[in-house]
């Protein structure tokens, strides 16, 4: 019985992944010939774009913190979104007097952030602006990571802080530091209890899966829009499945 269940589990998993893949490809190829898709207005991304422009004009720096998520875990998804945001911000602020600075709490994430910065500047033919010390590992434990990122906010002429990745409740310390240094804070995390903290402490929180829409809102490419549409489609499917399952359970059909 358990083997059958595990087989069904594996089959459903494969089917689910293939369904996601198919939807992404479908939306990608069908969306190429369509006009621009209107996305739901999310104020946080407006603030990101505005703050990038303001930072370039004022000669201040952007601080993008990728959290402490391990890419080998589930938290890796949020970490990759943080890298996407880093890439977009580095492109937009490439001609700023002070280039963006990143902080992270994981060694792999630090290396990836360095690589992202370098490839961004290389693609813009501005590789001489790349400084490997602009991507920093600030600490290996959550509180050490927060304690190491706070000096960046205070001392590096930061005008805006973007937190995107896996961050826990220690993010409250970072948002507090941002408020003390009078810099804007836009934060999104996949941690649920951290999102509750963000609602109370951040200027512009990204709640739920809004973080995963960052690529689509910041113009990272049509594939991001296609994957966002896939998420929306499957979300409705899951809602329908949960409601139907609850009704069946109430009716006693489901054991």
């Amino acid at each position, binding site marked *: 019985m358990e083997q059958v269940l595990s087989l069904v589990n594996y089959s459903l998993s494969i089917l689910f992944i293939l369904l996601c893949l198919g939807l992404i490809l479908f939306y990608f190829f069908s969306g190429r010939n369509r006009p621009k898709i209107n996305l739901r207005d999310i104020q946080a991304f407006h603030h990101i774009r505005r703050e990038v422009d303001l930072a370039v004009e004022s000669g201040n720096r952007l601080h993008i913190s990728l959290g402490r998520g*391990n890419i*080998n*875990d*589930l*938290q890796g998804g949020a970490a990759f979104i943080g890298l996407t945001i880093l890439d977009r911000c580095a492109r937009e602020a490439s001609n700023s007097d002070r280039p963006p600075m990143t902080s992270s709490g994981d060694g792999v994430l630090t290396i990836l952030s360095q690589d992202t910065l370098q490839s961004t500047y290389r693609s813009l033919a501005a590789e001489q602006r790349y400084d490997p010390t602009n991507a920093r590992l600030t600490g*290996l*434990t*959550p*509180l050490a990571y927060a304690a190491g990122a706070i000096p960046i906010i205070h001392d590096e002429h930061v005008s805006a802080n973007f937190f995107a990745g*896996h961050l*826990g*409740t220690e993010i409250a310390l970072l948002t507090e530091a941002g408020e003390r240094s009078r810099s804007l804070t836009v934060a999104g995390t996949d*941690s*649920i*209890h951290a999102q509750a903290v963000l609602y109370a402490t951040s200027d512009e929180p990204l709640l739920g899966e809004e973080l995963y829409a960052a690529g689509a809102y910041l113009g990272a490419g049509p594939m991001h829009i296609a994957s966002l549409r896939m998420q929306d489609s499957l979300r409705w499917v899951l809602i329908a499945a949960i409601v139907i399952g609850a009704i069946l359970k109430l009716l006693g059909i489901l054991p």
Partner: protein
Amino acid sequence: MTDIICPLCGKPNPPDLDECKYCQAPLKTAGFFALSDQEGEESSFLPPSGESGAVGDQSVQAESASPFEEGVPDWLKQTEADFLEGTEAKPEQGTPDELSMQIESLLNQPSVPEDTGKPVIDDDWLASLLAEAGGGSSAAVIPPEEPLEGLAEDDVAGKTQPFVEERTKVEGLLPPDQEEKPDWLTGLEAASTIKLAGGMSPSEPIDKSSSIGEPEVAKGPSQADLPEWVGQVESEENPPGTNESETPIAPAELPSWLEALRPEDTVSPTRPVEDLSAADVVTVGPLVGLRGVISAHPSAIRARKPPTYSIKLRVTDEQRARVEMMEALLADEQKPKPLPSQPIFNSRNIFRLVIAAVLIIPIAWMIVTGSQKTSTPQPGSIPGVVDFTQQVQALPAGTPVLLAFDYEAGFSGEMNLAISALINQLMIKNSYLTLVTTTPAGPALAESIIKTSTGLDGLPTAYSNYTNLGYIPGGTMGLLGLATSPKAVLPFSLDQVDVWAIPPLNTVSTINDFSAVVVMTNDPDIARSWIEQVGPVLRVDGTPLLMITSSQAEPLIRPYVEAIPSQVQGLVTGLAGGLAYGRSVGIMQQDGVWDAFSISMTTSALIIIVGSIIGVVRNMPTSDKKKEG
């Protein structure tokens, strides 16, 4: 030797040169003969430009100019020479008038009044001469005020360029009745007639055989030798001259369309536009006596080196002060203005300090006094504690138990209560404690807990039946590897001992071989990773998975506990769960922690309520103003 004065630069040049050696301006066509002090009688007539080498010295010049000079009376030559010599430095107002009148009398057309049979002659001397000559002269002298409209262009050119004369044959110009007159008068009349007829082009070669009207020249050819066409020309020309001597030139009748074109407001062209009374009088050259004209003297039109002007700006003191002010303003723009630093004691910081004091002071008081006013929670009132206790008590003695220390050092205060009680229970059972962690600080934390654990009597125990396998890198992937092959993932302990080769771990090949797996974490994601990666392997053999978590992870872990089949067999959460579990195993806390926790929660709730009320009250006036607006 007469040098030629260059008309451009005014410097003397040798007469044999065609171009000025200083500025390379042509000399022959417009050159002046320099008047030296020794040479007083020089002709100012220009030699024709076509001649080359003909002008070498004064005599040659005289010879080349002879055809022109032959037509000019000597008195005129002498007059010009005198003027060039003496009147250049001493301009006399009276003299230019006289000279101008004289020249004008020579240049102007003879005008004959209509009502007079005799020609009108302004100059008395000429009149006297003519009277002596016994005849009306046909060469009427035109008064200076006569308009020049009737003149042909050649005549005007001839007047303005007295040195350029048109060569005409004198024979045809002389009327027949002039034969009885003296030669000089005849020549004079011929000269005036020639001037009336037009100027001579300078390019025409001088025909020495021709005469301009000099009496000497006129002596040669007689009218009988002149060709017939000259006589015809003469006859054609004479009547106009005769008519002119008798009657003034009537103004031309303009057609109506031309009359209409005449602007109404224009000043009569005959009248000078500007007042020339104050203008300088030309004292040298053929325009001597005229006012308001460019002097033809070489010194007047000598090309001078343009004056050099300093490139330095003339800046006044006021302008200099303004420039300095502008520079200061621009310099200030480059300097970033430092932002005003926030005062240390502002309302926000004071509020923070007040909150911190309100929280810390009661907590410190409770701990210092060891207060136990608040009743500790019962094991049965906390779901999951009883199951946890039962699972631990059911463990066989001396069996290996896997302990995962995946919580942060900062949560030690909340979780150490439950962990210490668990360690104590396992020590009593003499279980072999296998310590692992997926956080970098976990090994030190685990080692510290084990070494500081105390027994039931509260005294520290030196428990050695444990091994610390250290840090598992790779997160979730490391857990998967640990679940399938722990020996491969953690081959040695922190002390570099191959613990898998010695009992009791030599009997452990997979994670199922442990009697229980206890995960201690504050992060619900780590807890979920253990449940999802290691739990399925544990469920195969029914190995219990127990958890000690922080209060913040309870909502996410509780469903796994309440699931059917349960994926977590026992759960202790937070300080309350730890106290309850401790109470269930007989460990009672006496240090006032629970009272401190209780008062801190109460105080926090009160602060939030008060702060929210204050915030609402402060925002109410602004919201009313917005509504009114």
